[in-house]
């Protein structure tokens, strides 16, 4: 593996990040991955015990299991893993959506997750369909909990979920929880008053690479786990080649690096929020 830039952002170093889907770990073989530019190895000691070790120093890294993932923190954990309340509800499937490695900054992957405008072009026939391309105005705000929330998002979707049989306008809520964690809530096609939730934990492999680990909490009615998982993998496979063709790979925080439109209101705020938090890892800082 090549030499990667190391991270000096405290918010990231002292936070938990997903480093593996537990189903991908085997006792027979140690699992190699990278977090914030640091190469690490995951060893399975017995059935329940996992150990994460830095390749450079051999030091043990803080690790723990939750939501079907193995989590690691390179520094000293300052806060707990993101809490997903829906994961506590018994009538939901909790599915890890398969880990997808993408050669782009994780911040770009988060931004892509927040973006409805690309549905008809990248997820043609699934999450959108030409000519239904309009992104209607929606609301974005910064909550008291320092999360970014976009509400009243609506988009026409031909097959919005594994159970959908025909196209309809879907309501979404997006929430950016941490710099590399974002969630999406969409109306369940059967229980219209309840929401299916997809939380995306993005592993910042290094500045130019990430692994997207989706975590789905879907109401069980009318769907099966394999269907949910396949749908998610299909969607991510469609995004991957586009994301890998974004130049530059890191997310530019300079407002004049790219051209936002009204549909990008949430992305504009996300970039500003990252700037305010002094997140630089995976970003190109704004010029003054």
């Amino acid at each position, binding site marked *: 593996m090549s030499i990667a830039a190391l991270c000096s952002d405290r918010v990231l170093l002292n936070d938990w990040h997903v480093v593996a889907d537990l189903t991908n770990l085997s006792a027979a073989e140690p699992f190699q991955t990278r977090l914030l530019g640091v190469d690490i190895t995951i060893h399975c000691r017995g059935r329940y015990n996992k150990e994460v070790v830095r390749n450079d120093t051999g030091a043990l890294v803080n690790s723990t299991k939750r939501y079907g993932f193995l989590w690691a923190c390179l520094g000293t954990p300052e806060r707990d893993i993101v809490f997903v309340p829906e994961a506590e509800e018994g009538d939901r499937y909790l599915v890890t959506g398969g880990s997808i490695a993408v050669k782009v900054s994780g911040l770009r992957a988060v*931004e892509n997750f927040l*973006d409805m*405008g*690309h549905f*008809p*072009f*990248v997820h043609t026939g699934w999450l959108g369909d*030409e*000519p*239904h*391309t*309009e*992104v209607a105005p929606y609301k974005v705000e910064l909550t008291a909990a320092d999360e970014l929330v976009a509400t009243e998002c609506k988009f026409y979707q031909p097959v919005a979920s594994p159970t959908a049989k025909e196209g309809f306008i879907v309501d979404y809520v997006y929430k950016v929880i941490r710099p590399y964690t974002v969630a999406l809530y969409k109306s369940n096609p059967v229980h219209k008053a309840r929401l299916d939730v997809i939380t995306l934990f993005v592993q910042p492999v290094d500045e130019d690479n990430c692994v997207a680990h989706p975590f789905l909490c879907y109401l069980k009615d009318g769907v099966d786990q394999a269907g949910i998982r396949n749908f998610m993998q299909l969607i991510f496979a469609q995004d991957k*080649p*586009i994301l890998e*063709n*974004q*130049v*530059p790979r890191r997310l*530019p925080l*300079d*407002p*004049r*690096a*790219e*051209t*936002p*439109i*009204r*549909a990008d209101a949430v992305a504009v705020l996300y970039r500003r929020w990252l700037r305010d938090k002094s997140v630089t890892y995976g970003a190109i800082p704004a*010029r003054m």
Partner: protein
Amino acid sequence: MLDLAKTRWHPIAAGYDLPLRHVFHGQLLGREFAVWRADDGYVNIWENRCLHRGVRLSIGINDGRELKCQYHGWRYSNRTAGCTYIPAHPADAPARTITNRTFAAVERYGLVWSAEEPQGEVPEIPGLAEGELLALRGIPVNAPADVVAARLKGYRFQPNAALDGKDAKVAVEASNDFTVALRAVEGGAATLAAFFVQPVDSNRSVIRGVLDGKVEGAARLAVLRHHNELLSALRVAVEAEAAHKPAPAPLEPVIERVSPELAEMPEETKHGRKATIRVQVARKWPAADGIAGFELRPIKGLLPTFQPGAHIDVHLPNGLIRQYSITNGPGESDSYVIGVKLERDSKGGSTCLHETVREGDVLAISEPRNNFPLRRDAVQTLFIAGGIGITPLLAMAQALKNQSLAHELHYFAQNEAQLAFPEKTSTLGASLKPHLGLSPDQTGAMLREILSGYGPDKHVYLCGPGPMLEAARHIAAEMGWPETAVHFEYFKNTNVIDDSTSFEVALARSCMTLTVPAGKTILEVMRDAGIDMPSSCEQGACGTCLATVIEGEPDHQDVYLNDAERKSGTKIMTCVSRAKSARLVLDL
């Protein structure tokens, strides 16, 4: 050392790299380019990066006229690289200034040449005649271009006519850091070979060879194979040599920032009634009975990007200013084509164009403005044109046709001879539906038929004489078309304007209060106060001088706003409309 001058021309692609509807990924000195040929033959070399979110345009779609980005479907026009459509906001005309960076392109010796800031001419190789050439396959090499060029001076090959020989004498005829011309001679056979080394990056190159003389068939294959083998061997040798030295760091081209205005969500561009562009009448012809066609070409540079529905102000030699819609299809960006109907009661505008203006004359025009934007998110679009009202709708229909979006163009005229621009309308195929010689009653019946069957996501666009527009808008309303689905453009405002009132106008953002006296318009009073406000027709028909009303009751006298917009009281056309209340507050 590798010469990094941005002023030098380098080959960036071979002609065969640009087949029909393809986008080629080119690279020079570390900078990436999207290279594509439009159906009209024009070679576009652009920064390989969509201005929206940086996605490579080399993975975009070349539809022959425009390049469409894969990520959010933004469309960029042939030649100008101006953005013509943003699908996420189908009802807006994109700000004209969203324009990607373009680079010079020259085709020479079967290659496409470019440079960041070119100076002078593409290298000239004496004895290499354009058209009589054989271009070799490009050979990529992982080594700096100057190292490759130095090696090429020792390249040995056989002349085309003596491939089986072994003893050709090869002499260097010319050489520099990037170019080597060699002549191989054996017996009576001689071949001139020119090698241009494309500096892809600090440590990557492509050898682009060209031989003089055409060779066909099996002989051609043999020649290509001969050089392919020899150049591949040379490649192996150069790469081995380069591997001994430390690899130079890759070049990092600077990506220009977008303008500060574009960093915000673009608002409509602000400008007055300026005629900033000089064009020449390249062609004038009878486009139909009583309609003259004009093709306007720029005197220098490129014409600005236009969108379907856009119009230009044409400043006439007699001092009058008239508006004409651009009829061009997408990507037809080398000239604007307009249609001018000779008006019986002409006040001198159309007469001047018909009788005085000739081919070769120079006219001043404004930048195109689009107050009649076309949505492209409809499941079906109806266009209803009456007479010369065909012009904006023709541009729109061609745009939808190009994107294979469902549409019908209903074209009402007195007779066949009055159908304008047959060469353009004929490309629309079955979607063109002419309706000839109908009386007003028959027209009404036909409109009823066309407008029956409203459904969600259907839109209709109307342009034609006032009475027909009124009738069509009425019928559409009766048949259940919501106003948001009915789009129209009047040629002129035939309302009698009452300018006898006097009132106050407060400009909220400029913190200014002005008095509009009888006989003067809001627009005039604002201009007198030094406020730069765009306008075009100045009779309440085109929509350019629109302002937002914050407070007060407007007295609408225009024909641009629809009824819902009028009732909402939040918009006003400042060139004709006035106030019913004593005071208006505008968001200016």
